[in-house]
């Protein structure tokens, strides 16, 4: 059975429809709710979803309620358009930016051994997964690319360390 605080948290998280940070939740709950209380309430809330169709996850931007992965086939029937599949070129470029960021396009090309189609960069940028984070000093001052928080959120990741551990565990040790 949920406490009143947990019910409020649930309603707020569901109404938000986007990740909410702990700080934001504390702010919304008001002064009586401190970090420890919030933490405990969230843990209980997460546990209460064990038998339900959704779950509480923590991603880079905060806490989010999401439908469980195993129900994706039914949820997919809700919308006629199928989710985008990305080519190897797109995925490799994205993985490389995530891995070596901040990185220039030339550096991406050096690792992949092929030139990077500008469409790939545009696709990733429009998706909100990569962004220009600066410029490399030197001739031409090329753009430096990095991944966004949205990228972490969309791939169910909490942080870049989390990403490293799951996606390039071999190289994580070197860094």
């Amino acid at each position, binding site marked *: 059975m949920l406490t009143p605080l947990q019910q409020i948290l649930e309603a707020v998280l569901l109404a938000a429809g986007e990740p909410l940070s702990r700080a934001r939740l504390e702010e919304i709950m008001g002064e009586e709710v401190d970090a420890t209380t919030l933490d405990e309430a969230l843990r209980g809330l997460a546990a209460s979803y064990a038998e339900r169709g959704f779950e509480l996850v923590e991603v880079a931007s905060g806490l989010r309620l999401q439908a469980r992965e195993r129900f994706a086939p039914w949820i997919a029937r809700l919308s006629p358009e199928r989710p985008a599949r990305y080519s190897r070129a797109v995925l490799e470029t994205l993985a490389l930016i995530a891995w070596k960021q901040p990185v220039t396009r030339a550096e991406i090309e050096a690792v992949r051994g092929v030139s990077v189609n500008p469409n790939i960069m545009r696709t990733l940028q429009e998706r909100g997964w990569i962004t220009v984070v600066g410029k490399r000093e030197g001739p031409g001052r090329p753009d430096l690319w990095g991944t966004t928080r949205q990228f972490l959120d*969309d791939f169910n990741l909490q942080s870049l360390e989390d990403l490293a551990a799951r996606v390039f565990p071999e190289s994580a040790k070197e860094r």
Partner: protein
Amino acid sequence: MTIDAAVQPEYVARVGEQLLLEFPQDLYIPPDALAVILESFEGPLDLLLYLIRKQNLDILDIPIAEVTHQYMGYIELMQGMQLELAADYLVMAAWLAEIKSRMLLPRPPQTEDENDEDPRLALVRRLQEYELLRQAAERLDALPRVDRDVFPISVQVPVIERRQELPKVTLDELLEALRTVLQRAALVEHHHIQREAISVRERMSLILLRVAEGAVRLLDLLRPDEGRRGVVVSFLALLELLKGGQIEVERDEEGLFLVGVKTEAC
């Protein structure tokens, strides 16, 4: 961008209805399949890795002559088909040829010298790094992804007035602020006097606002319907304002008192 070898690993290419389960050993490839096959490689490193893996060769000890031979076979085929070959494939071909020729040179006895390392080493490093990248891309694609595997959920929100909400202040908060500020100013003595005074002061503001729009007859400001107390309060307020020089009183043509805003002394 449509062929996704990572997701469809079970065949190399599709030609019409026929699936090519592996590359023909003799390197003969049906002409219309070649473009498809080439597209399924993400460049020369990918092709090279494929050739090495295909034959269970050790990436750390690549038989460079053989691999070069096979690689060139593909390149020649593609050139023969007049496919527009990405320059990257030719650059790799040149590099392989260079490594091969350096391998043929007798190695000097002093091998510790950095410049005399195995000519294949740079290639091995790039292949290894690319291999890591390939795996990373696959792992990334396998992560549960929003809108493909997991779906952020939301519920309808009860009707909430979305107009710009202003901070709410309770009367208690205001009273608290008033007490604090009065205590600080040591103005709390003589409660009664203060209580009377606040009515007078309130009335002063109201009178000022009324006369700001134009002169008003005194009798209109002292309204009997407010009761004796109201009239007294108004009168005290008028006196206060006169004393402070905020208003002036004149007689009009009919001899009635007219209250107006004090005009600037010239």
